């Protein structure tokens, strides 16, 4: 069943057409990835889904209901969360407060406490540093915190914007294995990545975005072996 359906979505920034009518869907329980070069419109896509960007056309349907012009706060309420590009943890809040603010719209204190434990289970480092200001964490730790903070909203759909950006290779591996674990716990994942290789490896399905259009779509495995994708995004030439 499709959890999220994007139909002919168009976005303009001033006179520039960032998205020229893209359509894709994300089914419940899947990891779907959008790959593409810089400026292809990946971030814009995620930002329009959670209501941060004004759309100029098209429709977004979530759980069978249109959410095209919903305010950000409402989309969060519906269980759509975004892990923004560049982590964007609140540097002046402690690690624990960053997690708590992720659960800002929830009222069930017991459930929140439980979820904090759950996040600490994913990322023991965050528990060790729970009293520190988030601004003092390393890049990898901040990314863990950003993911943990998103999980605190108990999302149905978690969208991640370049979670591996600027991280050491070992940390990148951790992040991707965490994404798989989150998904196996029943959270649907929409992932955008420059690291197409790693993203396609864990994704059930993938879409290739090229200058505001969907150029290709297939299963993650098939895209990983597709010659065009290999050439353009994986940096491997044909033998």
């Amino acid at each position, binding site marked *: 069943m499709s959890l999220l359906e994007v139909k002919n979505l168009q976005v303009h920034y001033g006179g520039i057409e960032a998205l020229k009518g893209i359509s894709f869907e994300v089914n419940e329980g899947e990891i779907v990835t959008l790959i593409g070069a810089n400026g292809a419109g990946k971030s814009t896509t995620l930002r329009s889904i959670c209501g941060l960007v004004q759309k100029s056309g098209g429709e977004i349907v979530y759980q069978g209901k249109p959410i095209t012009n919903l305010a950000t*706060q409402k989309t969060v309420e519906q269980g759509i969360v975004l892990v*923004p590009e560049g982590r964007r943890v*609140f540097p*002046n*809040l402690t690690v624990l407060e960053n997690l708590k*603010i992720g659960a800002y719209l929830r009222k069930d204190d017991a459930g929140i406490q439980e979820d904090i434990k759950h996040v600490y289970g994913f990322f023991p480092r965050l528990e060790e540093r729970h009293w520190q200001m988030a601004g003092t964490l390393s890049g990898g730790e901040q990314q863990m915190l950003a993911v943990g903070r998103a999980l605190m*909203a108990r999302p149905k759909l978690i969208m991640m914007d370049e979670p591996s950006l600027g991280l050491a290779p070992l940390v990148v591996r951790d992040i991707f294995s965490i994404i798989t674990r989150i998904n196996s716990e029943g959270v649907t994942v929409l992932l955008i990545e420059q690291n197409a290789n790693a993203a396609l490896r864990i994704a059930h399905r993938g879409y290739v975005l090229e200058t505001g259009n969907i150029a290709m779509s297939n299963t993650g495995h098939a895209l990983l072996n597709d010659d065009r994708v290999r050439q353009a995004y994986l940096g491997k030439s044909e033998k």
Partner: protein
Amino acid sequence: MALFWQNVANGLTVGSLYALVAIGYTMVYGILRLINFAHGDIFMMAMYFAFFAISIFYIPWYIAIILVLVATMLLGMLIEKTAYAPIRNAPRISLLISSIGVSYLLENLATVLFTGVPRQFPSIGSLQNSLVIGGVTIQQLAIYTPVVMLILVALLLTLINKTKTGMAMRAVSKDFETAKLMGVNINRTISSTFAIGSMLAAVGAIMWGQKYPQIQPYIGVMPGLKCFIAAVIGGIGNIKGAVVGGLLLGMLEIMIVYAQPGLSGYKDAFAFVALILVLLIRPTGLFGEKVTDKV
């Protein structure tokens, strides 16, 4: 010696009043990066509210104070909604200019509505009466003002550091968009910041009226500027800084005149000299915003 302690008490009173108003500057700056130049005029309006409630409508002062606090709070929120919210995404300079516009608007509105004739501020309870402690005669106000200020600051710091609303305020002050992604209502958070800042200015205004019981439409200008300076001395954006800055500035003004009575004509200039010195030596102020970002 009695004179010395009298001056200390005086400095403490004035300093506490500065602190109450300076907090409003610092909170608004913290969340919007805006120097709200209308803050001094919100202070002036609060004084008129109190004057009308007590001297014209004969409302008992303990009820009047509550009405004045609520009215000033609403005024602050109204200003934010009409003059700042519509241009929130514009460059900061537009907000600044808008706040100067609001300042002129309030001053002239007050002149039209209330006339420029100075009015007598009503006395509240026994605040203006004197009492003698160890041979030193001081106004009761000198005891109440610092105590009220410290209680309100303690409450405010608890609100900001321990509650969900406070956490949202701190988050919004760093990053609007990400705060939105957490489901925080930005408009409401900014509104409450203005509400709190204006309410504290109203408390300051009522007590100011006990010390200097005269009101006219431009009464807010000088205290407004000085409290802005107090906020800068303490490190704008930092609430404890605003308190320390306010107390320092109040003490400085009173004690310099005490030590050098010949300088009393320049009393209002000290604050500006202090501002220049702070900007030259330590532009971020005493408790300038902590930068914990790690790139």
